[in-house]
């Protein structure tokens, strides 16, 4: 049984802006002087990233997260994927999770394309057999040919993105958590990429996808959550929520 339930979840996190706030000497000076010295070390600003969000996802649910930049979408994704713990409220998860939030991490520019795929496969916990299949799959999808035997340093930006995209979309899991769909590459690739994304998402039993595109959301998702300043503004059918959302943001295109 796969589920993801959030109940009145709040997330707050500190922002360390000045070097004194990151310094153990600053901390010591502040405490020892009862707040007189290194004042900024004693007053650390806190962001209320999420304020009392509640929703419940079951097998087959695909949730699109929309909202302005800074509304809490990425924090929500990181909460769902287990990186961040709620400060209050509860989150209950059943099922294996995987996230596609920062696919470029773990890329070693001195290693070849194939070596990187191998390493990322290991990090993702894929078995040896699975990794061999992954290598074939990546070679087939990216069409990078012999470049896969050369260091990633020699790749163009578009080629690197194709490689990362291929690995990222090979992730299989019960619950998939994705931050914005990567869009890059030439027209031929974009077409292929769209198909691959669809296939990847279809394999997941629950999908949480942060996006700025109403079209993608309505094609791929059955629910949409509109976040603003960490609060749930609206939760429901993608078209309904999207229409409400864009009426506040007229510069975004309406979904046909």
């Amino acid at each position, binding site marked *: 049984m796969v589920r993801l339930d959030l109940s009145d979840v709040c997330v707050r996190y*500190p922002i360390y802006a000045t070097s004194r706030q*990151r310094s153990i000497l600053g901390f010591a000076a502040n405490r020892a002087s009862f707040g007189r010295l290194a004042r900024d070390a004693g007053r650390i600003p806190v962001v209320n990233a999420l304020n009392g969000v509640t929703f419940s996802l079951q097998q087959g649910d695909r949730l699109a997260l929309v909202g302005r930049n800074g509304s809490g979408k990425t924090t929500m994704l990181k909460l769902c994927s287990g990186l961040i*713990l709620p400060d209050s409220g509860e989150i209950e998860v059943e099922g294996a999770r995987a*996230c596609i939030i*920062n*696919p470029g*991490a*773990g890329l070693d520019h001195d290693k070849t394309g194939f070596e990187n795929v191998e*390493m990322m496969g290991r990090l993702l916990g894929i078995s040896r057999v699975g990794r061999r299949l992954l290598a074939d799959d990546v070679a087939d999808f990216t069409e990078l040919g012999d470049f896969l035997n050369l260091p990633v340093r020699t790749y163009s930006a578009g080629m690197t993105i194709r490689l990362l995209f291929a690995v990222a979309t090979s992730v299989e899991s019960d619950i998939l958590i994705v931050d914005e769909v990567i869009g890059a590459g030439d027209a031929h690739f974009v077409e292929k990429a769209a198909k691959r994304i669809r296939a990847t998402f279809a394999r997941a039993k629950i999908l949480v996808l942060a996006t700025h595109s109403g079209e993608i959301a309505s094609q791929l998702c059955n629910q949409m959550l509109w976040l603003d300043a960490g609060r749930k503004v609206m939760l429901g059918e993608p078209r309904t929520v999207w229409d409400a959302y864009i009426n506040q943001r007229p510069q975004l295109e309406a979904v046909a």
Partner: protein
Amino acid sequence: MRTLWGDVLATALGLAVRDLAVSLKRLPLAADLASQDIHGKYKRTVLGPLWIALGQAATVGGFVLVFSSLFGLSVDVYAIYLAAGFPVWALISSYLTDMPNAFVASKGFIESYEVPWLTHIWRRSIGYLFVFAHQVITLFAAMAILRVPPKIEMLYALPALLIVSVAGAGIGIALAVIGARYRDLQPAMSIFAGVAFLFSPVMWRAEQLQVNEWVVQYNPLYYVISLLRDPLLGVAPPAQTWVISGGIAAGALITGVLVFLLSRRRLYHWL
């Protein structure tokens, strides 16, 4: 209704235990990452990791040339003493100076992959052991050249290495957590290690110290260094050293675990 601390510890404990369990199950991954770290450093060099042994030989050679007459020690004795002591010190010092960066440097990994926090600790530990093994090559080379026969007591080095690694990992976890929150911990630990090197019998011999014996007696590093160095010199470490080092290892482990537990909630935010 459970108390707030009960809740915090219940979640943190569960997470920490799960983190430990998964990190141990995925130890081969830590080994792989360690191997990647090291080979990355020596990638386009001629000797590869053998540079480690060469560097060690140069350091020992330099010290012997300058200090053996200053200390009134014969070259043979001093060379072996240093060739055994420097790798031990380097191992301990690595834990102190490199661990504060363990989580900070792996931020990208942590964000993107479901890899346990503790894997980054094991990864570095394995790296330090690899370097240690290469530095000890210099010791064996020195023993061969100076015709010092190996003794069976050298096998004590294996349990000693285990205890030192446990102590190192324990303190390493604490340092990695605190180093994530306070970014100047790493430079501070570098200075500390530099001073500790002077205060510990690595460059000089404990027996030579006639005054200020407290420097050796109350220096916890002395016992840990001796525990691993004595077997390398062909001597079984005395019971007192085993007991004190074991205590230090246990204390370090408990400290590391506690610090990890108490900070687990905030840890990601600190990166």
